């Protein structure tokens, strides 16, 4: 799992989308992150981390390659704008609802 900076993550995510245009899927996971870098300690052992409340973890994968990044409050505005644009630009293979052409087609077949 490669942990990247926000910008590098967006670049790599673009590449993942481009690679999967002909086959395969892109899976993106989003989860709240409290900043811990060590596993949860067993009972009786003191917690050695400081809980951070303002971060989230984003992971992406095409089944083979895995990338991830951490976004915090300071970066979220900029990151979210770029990220939304990216999603909307690449998830364009879906059907567009076109009522007019649909009704025309059914009329033609009748």
């Amino acid at each position, binding site marked *: 799992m490669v942990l990247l900076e926000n910008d590098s993550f967006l670049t790599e995510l673009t590449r993942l989308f481009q690679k999967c245009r002909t086959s395969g899927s892109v899976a993106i996971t*989003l989860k709240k992150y409290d900043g811990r870098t060590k596993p949860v300690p067993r009972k009786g052992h003191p917690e050695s981390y400081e809980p951070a409340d*303002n971060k989230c973890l984003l992971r992406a994968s095409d089944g083979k390659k895995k990338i991830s990044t951490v976004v915090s409050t300071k970066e979220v505005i900029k990151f979210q704008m770029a990220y939304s644009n990216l999603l909307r630009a690449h998830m364009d293979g879906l059907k567009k609802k076109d009522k007019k052409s649909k009704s025309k087609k059914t009329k033609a077949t009748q």
Partner: protein
Amino acid sequence: MPYYQTWEEFARAAEKLYLTDPMKVRVVLKYRHCDGNLCIKVTDDAVCLQYKTDQAQDVKKIEKLHGKLMRLMVSKESGAMEMD
């Protein structure tokens, strides 16, 4: 694992589930260009909510919900609890 039929129900249930336990809930987005569909899942490993679509108009909705949850995660807990 039930797939929601309407976006409104799914969005409401997803936000509600997130607010019950922000640390446990994760959001998974799976896009398949070759099949032309998009699937979103929100789960806390006990409850699983899913929505699937092949409509372009849903991409914007899904991306907005994703962004909303992202912002909720990075903001301090000010939604459910009041800061003293």
